[in-house]
């Protein structure tokens, strides 16, 4: 009868540790998703008296790399999409990130009541999209919103088509703009070079009430 070779104690410890590490690595994706969604909340926003364009830039930029979720509005600040590869048009998948109109709504500190034009700070993990779709934004609908001339649209004004909206991060020298936008599941949320300003499908939209 053959006997198996004796494994030294150090090697056994190493193999056990390796097994534990492997199992943790395999479950980390699901774990990250569950940890992320558990943090999303529904508390009331904080009413603010100020709203500056550079603060809005910081707020929107902080959402970069956090992913894109159709109909979403909840993200953390770990610079990664905790739930990537969602199905298109699926609101119910509990993914991380905002969609285009959700990012604009939260960045512009708007109210869920379309008749209110006050400033409401929504923290990143507050899961809210807001009542506006892109067509409503494009029409400048709602007390806080209005249509602006595209040629004069400035920092943190927006360009909206029937199906997409993005905010001007800064104007580029080459005819287009650096636009911060929640673009799509595959491309996520980030600053992209866009020519919406000269695209006839897009109109200019602004937020009333900037204090600086």
């Amino acid at each position, binding site marked *: 009868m053959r006997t198996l070779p004796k494994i030294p104690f150090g090697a056994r410890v190493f193999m056990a540790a390796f097994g534990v590490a492997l199992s943790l690595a395999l479950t980390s994706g699901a774990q990250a998703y569950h940890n992320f969604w558990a943090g999303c909340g*529904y508390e009331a926003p904080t009413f603010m008296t100020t709203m500056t364009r550079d603060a809005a830039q910081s707020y929107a930029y902080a959402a970069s790399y956090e992913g894109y979720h*159709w*109909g979403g509005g909840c993200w953390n600040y770990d610079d990664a999409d905790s739930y990537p590869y969602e199905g*298109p*048009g*699926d*609101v*119910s998948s509990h993914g991380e990130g905002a*969609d*285009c*109109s*959700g990012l604009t709504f939260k960045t512009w500190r708007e109210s*869920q*009541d*379309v*008749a209110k034009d006050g400033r409401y700070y929504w923290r990143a993990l507050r899961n*809210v*999209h*807001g*009542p*506006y*779709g*892109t*067509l*409503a934004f*494009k*029409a*400048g*609908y*709602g*007390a806080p919103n209005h*249509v602006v001339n595209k040629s004069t649209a400035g920092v943190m004004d927006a360009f909206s088509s*029937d*199906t*997409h909206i993005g905010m001007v991060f800064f104007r580029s020298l080459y005819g287009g703009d650096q636009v911060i936008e929640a673009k799509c599941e595959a491309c996520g949320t980030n600053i992209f070079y866009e020519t919406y300003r000269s695209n006839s499908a897009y*109109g200019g939209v602004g937020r009333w009430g900037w204090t600086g």
Partner: protein
Amino acid sequence: MDGLRFVCSRAAAVGAALALVLASGCSHEKPPKRLADGALPGEFRPVRGSVLTQARTMRRTTLGPRFSSCFSGDDAERFSGDTLVLERIGVDSQSLTFIGPRGDTVYGCDGGAEPTGERAEPWCGSAAGRLFDGRLLDPRLDVLCLAPDGLPLAYAFVEPISSARWIGVDQGSYTEIYEVLAGLPVRVATTRHVQREGRATFVVTQYDREGQELTKQTLEAAVAG
């Protein structure tokens, strides 16, 4: 003391009977007698106590300002006069549905009361959804409108399954019936289960030509995109 107990027990019995009558009255509430435009609604015979909405198709030019007032500025000009528009009149709702000039986007104009006074009557909301292989991926929920009684009014598209000819939406005391027309998704509306968070739930039943139930599903929609 016994007399008092007797009076109390009788009062309780009368109260319980009254509550029962009220409750039974509520559960047998009759369907509405008028549509949003004041017309008398028909009944879809296979579904008892239903209300049949009106639907008709026409060219954009026929609708004139009723069409253009759905858009801001001259945004309506991109739609040609030949654009086929499906107009629907429901109990609390009225809507227009049409396909965009490039054929890849479906639009909805949603009617009702409007809380800000910014839009021309009867429109208070609108929606646009990209078509993928001729179908929407998402119901394009709109919660910007109010019903005449002040309740939030939610609109959404329902994609009919093949062989579906009628769509029914549970409105509590009655079922509102929409005809499937022109190969377009059906813009339905409800005031039930509408949340301020921009979410709404529709209980949707699809029927074939004879009114035979094909599917019944709960459509949970959220404002997106």
